[in-house]
């Protein structure tokens, strides 16, 4: 296998924002235990911005590191900005991921989008940026 960057290992060893937000405004769940990676992402939204964000992940080093990284990238951002965060942004901020991990374990952006979608649909808000959220084939 290819090896992880030092940045991935840092996030793997000491992930940021691990946990659950009991009264979350939006929850995004992605992944599949049979594939090995599942991520739950919780967000609190205040004045159109992501005020708090936490995650729980079962998965490999890349799954944990990308989860941790997305919470750092998304915190404080407006929902619109957060919806623009892509898998490539997450991988790039981590100094890259081994090629095989780009597809299978880079779930974090999807989880964030799902959490925002969840928040918006609870609010009954039209999904302005929904076209950016690609659905599973």
């Amino acid at each position, binding site marked *: 296998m290819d090896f992880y960057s030092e940045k991935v290992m840092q996030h*793997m060893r000491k992930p940021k924002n691990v946990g659950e937000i009991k009264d979350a405004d939006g929850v995004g769940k992605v992944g599949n*235990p049979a594939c090995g990676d*599942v*991520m739950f992402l919780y967000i609190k939204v205040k004045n159109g911005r992501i005020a708090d964000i936490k995650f729980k992940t*079962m998965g*490999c080093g890349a799954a944990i590191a990308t989860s941790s990284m997305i919470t750092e990238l998304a915190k404080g951002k407006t929902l619109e900005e957060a919806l623009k965060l*892509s898998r490539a942004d997450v991988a790039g901020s981590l100094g890259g991921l081994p090629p095989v991990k780009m597809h299978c374990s880079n779930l974090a952006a999807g989880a964030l989008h*799902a959490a925002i979608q969840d928040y918006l649909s609870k609010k009954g808000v039209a999904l302005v940026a929904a076209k950016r959220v*690609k659905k599973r084939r």
Partner: protein
Amino acid sequence: MRVKQEVILMKVYLDHAATTPVDPRVLAEMRPFFSQTFGNASSLHSFGREAKEALELARARVAKLISASQDEIIFTSGGTEADNLAVLGGVDSARGKKVVCSAVEHPAVLEPCAELGRRGFERVLLPVDREGIVDVHVAGRARVASLVSVMHANNEVGAIQPIAEIAKFAHDGDAVFHCDAVQSAGKIPVDVRKLGVDLLTLSSHKIYGPKGVGALYLRKGVKLKSIVFGGGHERNLRSGTENVAGIVGFGKACELALREMPRESRQLSALRDRLLKKLLAIDGAALNGPRGAKRLPNNVNVSFGAIEGEGILLGLDDAGIAVSTGSACSSKKLQPSHVLLAMGRRPEQAHGSVRYTLGRSTTAKQIDFTARKTAEVVARLRRMSPFKPGEDLSGVDFGGHHEEYVE
């Protein structure tokens, strides 16, 4: 004043099924064969004769480990080549276009069998039970084949197969029987006569010899076709100038393995059971594979629920402990262990599996340290996991995995 304390990290290598360090006694034996006694064993002059002599001493030592005779040993570049030679060179379509192997074979056997499938052979995979052991009666039903290949002991879960019985069934059906003994040799007795095998694979670097050397046992009278063509070395069955230094090391490693096996296997079994007991005390941990005498003395394989094996591997690596996992994340193919799946484990259990393989230098202190660190790493990953150990995850799917990678 603060005294700077140096933290000495205890390094614990528990991946002996992957490879072993070269024993210093093996290295000492090999040393002259690089620059002093460097001759080509095929040369007629004194340099060549010296090399040839060393080669034949090594052949005798390898043969002795498996109770074979010297002229039944063919040196190869390793276990994979020996397996390929056995499967591809051992089939004979005159005996029917069918090849049988167990579902838990190493890729070095599975892949040449798959290649035979592409060449028009029918392939049969023998299922295993929950402990990873081939059902002898099922093996009996599939016996009419050109070649049957079943490993002596499994590399992932250490399950020891009833080879003598399976070989008997294979021979009843006129098949040639091959056995991959890469993991068992040097750990449990391997006697080619008692096992009744026609072909048997050995590897040097699993028994404290150098990498890049292996051997195929070929019973007298069994026909084998070469898969490497050239100068006709190794009785025209494996052309290529012999790796004399490597083979000398392999021979010495076999001699040491045979001598030290009784004491070593007793010692390893005790350490194995000590580790097993401590790991199974962790909430949600489950043993993969059999217990006691049906298991290799140096193998422990445990699935920890609700977490993934690569995370455990990396966490243990940070503590200086080297293990391996059946998780897809550590494989090139992104598939969880085919062995655990064949044993009826669910994919998430296979993903959460960790293999610890003990060796000559393993101590009780290392075992206790490893068990303690594993419990810590598992607890840390569990706090991160959305699931609890014991939670039924079958059929759970939140999607998102197959999202197209955009940008």
